[in-house]
Structures are given as structure tokens and as C-alpha cells.
């Protein structure tokens, strides 16, 4: 349990709603300016994803975005490239290994909907949102590195609107789809008011 859970729940039940809002501002600033990325690159999009991380031309380190190979050290998972049915359990495992709060960016048409591999193929999962809660989608086959950076900036905007209150935290339960169902059950912990 992270410290933030205790802080959040203590303030929720205490008199500290006002304190919570300024804490929100501080914490959201920290989270939004330090998006460490777990590059989940599988196919073509991985090349453009690599190009958009600290490289000479598109330097995402300017905004504090650096790649981390270990899912335990990352905040944002960028799923770049086609996800096949064989790969799907590995992606879910890696997502589960990331510590909360965590976000997912679906990069490229393959991760949005299956893209060019929508028809006629037997092994491609049509979009990562079948089994992961996606925050930002990037269209393109493959998207340009600028688009990846734009997605990170949009994710920053999204993080800024979050609260550390326990109800709106990023807790989502994931289960592997069974043989009959295609869509994983994605359920927020509790439907609560937005702080």
C-alpha cells in the first residue's frame, strides 16, 4: 500500500477536503511531469516509439519522459505494435507488474483496432482495449514520433485532472478473457464522485 493511499483516505475521512485539493495540485504536478515509460514495443510502431524517446531529434527527456525497461519502475505503458494472441498474456502480466497509478497509451492502429490486421487474420487481437484500460489512443500506421509526444502531453493533461482521493484512483481489476468471451472485465474499484 502506497503512502498516498493512507494520506488520501485519512484526508477523505478527516476535515481536510481543502488540504486535499492543494495536495492534489502538488501530486498531480509531480505525476504529470514525470512519466516514466515502459516501452511495450512489439512491431513497426516500436521503431517510432524508440525514436521519440531520448534521441537526438525527438528528445522526450525535455519533458521528463524516460524509458524504463523494468515494469516495476514505470508509470506509463506504451503499447506499440500488433498484439497477437500469443503475446497477450505477457502484456497483461507486464501491466499487472506496474505499480499504481499507471496509465496505458495505445500507439498505432494495430493497438487501437487491429488496423491493417483487422481482416482475415487468425492470431491478432483487435485492439489492446480488449484487455487493457487505455488512456490515450494514437492513430497512425505507424504514428510519427511527434504524435507520441503529443499523446504524452495529452496524458499529462489527463493526469492533472485526477485526485488522490481513494475513489478516483487508478485501480482496475483485470482478468484474462476466458475461452468464450473476448472482452476482459474492466471494473473501477468503486463508482464514486470526482473530487
Amino acid at each position: 500500500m502506497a503512502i498516498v493511499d493512507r494520506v488520501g483516505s485519512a484526508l477523505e475521512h478527516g476535515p481536510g477536503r481543502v488540504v486535499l485539493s492543494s495536495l492534489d495540485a502538488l501530486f498531480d504536478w509531480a505525476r504529470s511531469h514525470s512519466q516514466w515509460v515502459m516501452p511495450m514495443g512489439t512491431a513497426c510502431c516500436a521503431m517510432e516509439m524508440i525514436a521519440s524517446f531520448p534521441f537526438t531529434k525527438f528528445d522526450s527527456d525535455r519533458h521528463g519522459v524516460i524509458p524504463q525497461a523494468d515494469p516495476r519502475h514505470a508509470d506509463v505503458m506504451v503499447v506499440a505494435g500488433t498484439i497477437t494472441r500469443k503475446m497477450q498474456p505477457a502484456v497483461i502480466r507486464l501491466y499487472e507488474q506496474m505499480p499504481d497509478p499507471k496509465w496505458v497509451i495505445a500507439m498505432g492502429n494495430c493497438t487501437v483496432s487491429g488496423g491493417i490486421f483487422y481482416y482475415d487474420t487468425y492470431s491478432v487481437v483487435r485492439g489492446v482495449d480488449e484487455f487493457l484500460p487505455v488512456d490515450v489512443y494514437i492513430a497512425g500506421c505507424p504514428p510519427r514520433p511527434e504524435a507520441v509526444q503529443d499523446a504524452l502531453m495529452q496524458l499529462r493533461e489527463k493526469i492533472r485532472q485526477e485526485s488522490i482521493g481513494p475513489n478516483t484512483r487508478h485501480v482496475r481489476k483485470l482478468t484474462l478473457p476466458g475461452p468464450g468471451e473476448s472482452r476482459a472485465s474492466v471494473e473501477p474499484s468503486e463508482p464514486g464522485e470526482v473530487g
Partner: protein
Amino acid sequence: MNIDELRDHLCGQYPDLCPLFSIEFGDGTLQVECRGLYDAAADLKSLGFDMLGMVTAVDRGEHFEMVYRLTSREMSVGMFLKCLVPRDKPHTRSLYDLWPAALWQEREVYDLFGIEFDGHPDLRRIMLPEDWVGHPLRKDYQDERIIKRPDYI
């Protein structure tokens, strides 16, 4: 060496293989019985075809057609070696002993077509998960997860 010289060379060395050799689209093809595939391949190897470039199969309805692409470095020429495998319980002899390159390529054919290779040391699925049902590159492969592309040419 061009393809006609190859035919002459082959006919000179192995007269019994000569009638099975044909030329189409500028490429030589040796169509053999699958029983004699291994021996024909061994003959071709001793003829100078030292690289096994490609192993694949084609679903021809009644049969599967095994296609081997052989390349000779010293003659700078390539050719096909083909044989027909019956559809029920398809199996043929592995060429792993002649060219280790067949190791993965035959696994791929096994995975996607379901053709078994006798004498293959490690015949497992390679592309698809171990628990996959069916062999997708067969023309009669059924999978409800496939969405057929609308037909607009």
C-alpha cells in the same frame, strides 16, 4: 550458370531424375514422389546445392505440395524440389540430416499446415501457442475469430 545448363548438368549426372525436371518462369523444378524425396535431395546436395533456402507447403486440395528451394553457391543457381503429400495424415521425411536449416522451417510447416516430418528432432509448434487448435494456412481452416474482408476489388 543459367537454368538450361543446370538441366544438362543434372541430366548428365543423374539421368533418372532428368524426366522429372521442368522449367517454368525461368526456374527449374524437380517434381518427385515423396518416397524418393530424401534421396533426390541427397543427390542434389552432392550435385552442389549446398543451401536449403526455403521449405514450405501449398494446399492443393487433395494434396499438400511440399516445396523446397535449393540454392547452389558454386553454380549461382536455384531450383525447386517438389513433392505431393496426401491430405489425410500428411507426413514426409525430414531433411534435417542433410541441411540443419530445415529444423525451424519444417517446424513452421508443421505448425501452419499440420504436415508431420519423420525423423525431425524437435517437432513442436513454432509460430502459434502450443494449445492452438488447427493449422491456419490450410484452405479449409475454420476459426470464428477471423473476420472475412468484404469483397471489393
